């Protein structure tokens, strides 16, 4: 997460007891709000389908059965859930990796080469950030359908490889972190432009590259509309689509409710672990204009 470079210890001791209590009470209350659904689902995942409705939501029932629920989750529909998790990892991992490479190269090119129409092109790409996803997803279905790609992994992977916001971040960071003197010096030493980018610039841009990857990873992981529109075979679904598939069957068979709850809990745990463990790589300061370079 953002490394606070300037701890305000000097000002911290000036705070009066009253304001310490007031501020921290509000912060603690907000924590309860943000933790509520997560706490609920973690507790609910340990309950039997009956206890889900008959016991108090924020405390464990008398007969917890977390293991049973997990076994049920991973054995339902021939282990469909594990496939969905792997699919989500595949879509997000590969999609974000390629998106990061493309965006980094393009952002670097925008930062380090002057060419006619550069700013116009850049603003067109930035405009892409403002286009609602539905406006892209629906026509994309018909386009990819014409190319006979709908229903395949490619139909979700390919569109996920484009990150206009990543180009914006990469340009700003290349600007701030890769000095032109270094580029010039390498050129004088006889290094080719691509070599300079691949061996020197990317190393200097590492924080931005990691940030672009993480943003795109979470964006793809959380995406619902694109796979909903593109995919029809449950074996190719990501978690989001898979869980809503099960959720749509709860009317027919109430046991699916517990599967949805346990599945949600597992996927929440997966991403929360990922986000908290990688928190020092979330450099939001890049989004704010990269003033620290």
């Amino acid at each position, binding site marked *: 997460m953002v490394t606070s470079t300037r701890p305000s210890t000097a000002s911290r001791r000036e705070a009066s007891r009253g304001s310490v209590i007031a501020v921290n009470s509000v912060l603690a209350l907000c924590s309860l709000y943000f933790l509520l*659904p997560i706490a609920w689902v973690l507790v609910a995942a340990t309950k039997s389908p009956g206890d889900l409705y008959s016991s108090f939501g924020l405390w464990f029932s008398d007969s917890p059965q977390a293991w049973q629920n997990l076994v049920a989750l991973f054995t339902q529909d021939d282990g469909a859930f594990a496939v969905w998790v792997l699919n989500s990892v595949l879509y997000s991992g590969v999609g974000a990796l390629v998106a990061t490479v493309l965006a980094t190269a393009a952002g670097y090119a925008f930062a380090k080469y*002057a060419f006619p129409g550069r700013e116009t092109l850049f603003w067109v790409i930035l405009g892409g950030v403002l286009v609602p996803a539905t406006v892209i997803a629906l026509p994309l279905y018909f386009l990819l359908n014409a190319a006979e790609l709908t229903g395949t992994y490619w139909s979700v992977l390919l569109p996920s490889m484009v990150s206009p916001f990543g180009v914006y971040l990469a340009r700003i960071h290349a600007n701030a972190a890769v000095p032109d003197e270094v580029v010039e010096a390498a050129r004088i030493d006889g290094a080719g432009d691509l070599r300079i980018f691949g061996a020197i610039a990317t190393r200097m841009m590492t924080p931005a590259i990691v940030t672009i990857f993480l943003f795109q990873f979470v964006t793809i992981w959380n995406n619902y509309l694109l796979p909903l529109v593109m995919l029809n075979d449950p074996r190719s679904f990501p978690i989001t689509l898979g869980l809503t598939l099960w959720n749509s069957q709860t009317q027919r068979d109430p046991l699916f409710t517990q599967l949805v709850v346990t599945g949600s809990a597992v996927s929440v745990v997966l991403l929360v672990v990922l986000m908290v463990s990688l928190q020092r790589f979330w450099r939001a300061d890049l989004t704010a204009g990269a003033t620290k370079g």
Partner: protein
Amino acid sequence: MNAPTTQAPTGAPVADRAPAGPPSPHDERPPRRRGHRRTPPALWVLLVPFLAMFAAFFIAPIVYAIVDSLFTQRSSGLGLGAPTTEFVFLGNYARALSDPSFLASLGRLVAFSAIEVPLMVATALTLALLLGAAAARAPRLFRVTYFMPYGVPGVIAALLWGFLYVPATSPVLQVLGAVGIDLQPLSSEAVLFAIANIALWGFAGYNMFILIAALDSIPSELYEAARIDGAGEWRIVWSIKLPLIRPSIVLITLFTIIGTLQLFVEPLVLRPLTTAISSDYTPNLAAYNQAFSQGDPHLAAAMAVIVAVLAFAFSALFLRIVNRKGNRAW
């Protein structure tokens, strides 16, 4: 969006001086230096892969949608023979905009934006400022906690809140009910707020995060100078913090406007739980249904384009208001 303060030294031949600011005529000029190639092949190697993908998966669908929205499909005569595609110009737009339920969904979307955008920005700002306050203890812990929901997909967030909105499974409603407060988040009067709450929960921490980054980049000398001049915490917030993080506030407001206009997942997931959400509750849901259930992709394309135009109009309007002279002062 603001330009970085750390800039490449002047005089460098390929320096990019105003990356995110308004384009200045100087940037357009190719470098004129002896022996310097005007467009080195490396530029194309770096730029073309992204541009090709961008053209294929951003530009092409938009163009396709616009073109598609100008046509309609007519089945000929008694349904014999293949249906023909006819050019109807703005006919689909007229159809969409004269459909009372589509108009209602547009109105709902605007109402949702009016609730969600101020709520989101105010919450993110309050959290960021509180965490930056001198009195805050354990700000890192709180920050991670607020940011966590960003990692929960919108669909799963909606599923979880769905359980918390139904009295049978919701500990909150049970406790409130026990003390005599009867809350019905999924009733037709409250459901828009229930949806706004899900979006707030998911993205407030993310927006807070961007604001904190901006706050962190304010030099602490400014605060010290202000304190020496006798300024209190409120005064510092009002006169130093808010003006200096203004570009980031504008950024998150813009992102929130765009985000709210895409409203789709939350009503879709909550729909089975309540009669207050129709199958065309938002324009995006209506477009999705037209394309995949009603089999009218042309009308769906027109609806999607209307949403895009609305997004651009709102963004432009917002940027115009905040960039107006005189508003710059705070």
